[in-house]
């Protein structure tokens, strides 16, 4: 006898918002997947019709070209060219990212300097560089600076007889021996230095005395490197001109130099702005509190302002690092042997274009995703815990 019988408890399916939402999502997904499938199918049909091999077998073919400055030769397989390209991409990116963060931070602080000249010069630098297209900057660096400003090898500049600078590359003093040993030594020194810094922190917590972790760690690092240097019997070699090239030392390829310098100039102008903004984002009271404690200018910056600014800046700097990595693909335009250049060359030498570039794409994607994963982990640890 309930008066409510016959009144539907639910809306009909076609008017149920929950159902409609799902249907809409499904339709979108289906359309998306069909488009992908359609494109892929077209690719397959057309590629089969023109009888182009589609697999990754081309990776085992001989590469048919050489790269300056390493053991790779024309009978090495294509895959080893890709590995070398991957390595070169990482090399320019890692060095570039470290230098960009360093210079970017300096310029960002200079932007806030009380000194008019420093502030204005830094401001002009940021405004000019940030507003230029990277490829133009790179081409300029290669054609105008490396090719035209640097001397020919016959008249190479030899500052202090330590360096040899010509448009065939820049040779710097280096050590003799294998790179792996050096890396092992550096890694070991880094671990020991880290350990010392950590122990100093513990000590400081216990006694209340200043930790000076960075100072101690640097000293230990230098000691370990120097110690192993002498025990392992390493020696410097100085570069010198021989025939029409240089011998000894470490030779930086002119295209590596042009790419690295351009990437650093460009990226540090962006990082400078991030650093400036992050410093300004640190609450005023923090600086005033540091002043009240009579901390000196540099100490205030190092212990109070920068650590808090860094927390704000980290995600954005991470983004710029990723940008630098992706921008390193422009090196192909000036013949730096990074991943994109390798892909172009192997395609020119008979590797199928679509698989070769798909592979390149996936490699970039995996480097980028790994980097952003690391940044995210850091960021989560550093971010303010808000409740």
């Amino acid at each position: 006898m309930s008066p409510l019988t016959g009144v539907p408890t639910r809306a009909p399916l076609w008017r149920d918002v929950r159902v409609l939402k799902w249907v809409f999502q499904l339709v979108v997904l289906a359309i998306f997947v069909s488009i992908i499938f359609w494109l892929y199918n077209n690719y397959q049909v057309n590629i089969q019709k023109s009888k182009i091999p589609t697999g990754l077998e081309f990776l085992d073919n001989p590469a048919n070209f050489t790269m300056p400055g390493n053991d790779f030769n024309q009978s090495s397989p294509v895959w080893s060219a890709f590995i070398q390209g991957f390595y070169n991409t990482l090399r320019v990116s890692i060095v570039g990212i470290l230098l960009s963060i360093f210079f970017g931070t300096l310029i960002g602080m200079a932007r806030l300097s009380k000194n008019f000249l420093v502030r204005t010069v830094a401001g002009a630098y940021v405004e000019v560089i940030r507003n230029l297209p990277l490829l133009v900057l790179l081409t300029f660096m290669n054609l105008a600076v490396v090719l035209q400003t640097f001397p020919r090898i016959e008249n190479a500049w030899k500052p202090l007889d330590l360096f040899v600078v010509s448009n065939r590359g820049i040779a710097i003093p280096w050590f003799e021996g294998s790179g792996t040993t050096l890396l092992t030594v550096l890694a070991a020194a880094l671990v020991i230095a880290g350990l010392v810094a950590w122990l100093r922190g513990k000590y400081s917590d216990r006694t209340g005395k200043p930790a000076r972790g960075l100072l101690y760690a640097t000293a230990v690092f230098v000691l370990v490197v120097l110690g192993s240097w002498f025990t392992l019997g390493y020696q410097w070699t100085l570069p010198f001109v021989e025939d029409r090239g240089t011998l000894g030392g470490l030779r930086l390829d002119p295209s590596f130099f042009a790419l690295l310098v351009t990437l650093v100039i460009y990226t540090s102008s962006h990082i400078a702005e991030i650093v400036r903004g992050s410093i300004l984002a640190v609450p005023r009271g923090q600086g005033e509190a540091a002043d009240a404690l009579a901390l000196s200018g540099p100490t205030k910056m190092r212990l109070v302002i920068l650590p808090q600014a860094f927390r704000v800046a980290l995600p954005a700097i991470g983004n710029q690092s990723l940008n630098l990595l992706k921008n390193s693909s422009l090196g192909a335009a000036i013949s730096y042997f990074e991943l994109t250049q390798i892909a172009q060359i192997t395609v020119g030498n008979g590797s199928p274009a679509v698989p070769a570039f798909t592979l390149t794409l996936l490699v970039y994607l995996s480097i980028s995703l790994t980097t952003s994963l690391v940044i995210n982990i850091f960021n989560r640890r550093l971010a303010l815990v808000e409740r």
Partner: protein
Amino acid sequence: MKKTVGILAALAAATLVVSGCAASTDAEPAAETAAETTTETTTTTSAESVLAAVQEAGAVRCGTRDALPGFAVLQEDGTHVGFDSDFCRVIAAAVLGDADAADMVDLETSDRFTALQSGSIDVLVRNTTWTASRDGGEASTFVQTNFYDGQGMMVESGSGYDSISDMNGAVVCVAKGTTTEGNAALESSRLDLGWEVRPFDDTDLLQEAFLAGQCDGWSSDVSQLTGFRSAYPDGADSLEILPEVFSKEPLGPAVLDGDTQWAQVVNWAILATIQAEEFGITSANVDSFLASEDVTIQRFLGVEITTDEGSAVLDPGLGLPTDFAYQVVKQVGNYGEIFERHLTPLGLERGVNALWTDGGLMYAPPYR
């Protein structure tokens, strides 16, 4: 929890829908749209020959380049002048009876085969070396070689290099993605010279680097080097080409695999220029040959051959107009004329590119 299950269900449903599309045959109406679009794209490009498409469009799309002196140079008025450009015109004259119906498409070295594969050009006439991997891997078919070349080395006149074996530890600059790159590496390891081979995206950049002294040697096909030398900003005398030739570089037009008819058409268009030179027919005197009594010439020029049983014109069934050879010679010229027009001024000799009757390699099969 409920949400996750929902998402999973949605994904599963979507996968079902899509895999249904993928696996279905024509009989299944559910997948009609997907199947239709696929067949449509298939039929537009297959089955009919490029020849039919070219005749319908009234133009031959010819892959070429814009800045190789002697072979193909883009003029200020938008036309192309050069040996390769003339062979594009030869093909257009043969197929369409109009040498100006060749649409020149400028390509970079590294994208020339992709252009051919994707069908954005009909024929590639761009100093391309015929190699087995390109025949096999790049889906291309090479036809009659129109220039037999070889790789050489160009150096500055005052460099002190007299032969490539002097060039120990030299920096050798080449074009990126070419056979030149591999040959230079091979020659370096064969003679144990330890060259640093630097590739460049295009020849303008290479020339900049060479001018600035970044390279000791510039390696490429001798014909190209001759061309670049003649147009060098510091004057041709500031450069010299070393005597050695260290590779075989047969340069010829290429078409897409799987279209025999079009390949034959392009082939015979090239061969007609060689045959015409052998007959002594030039663009200037071709009309006087129309009255020739020689049956082989009558066949070649597509003149009506009168016999006791009547008269006929030879149509070998290539798909070309019967007067194609006449059009080629009349509008563009014979092989020797094209060579003299573009390559002789650069200082290139006929050499192996002479007619077989003169001890060269240029030989056309009989037209009958």
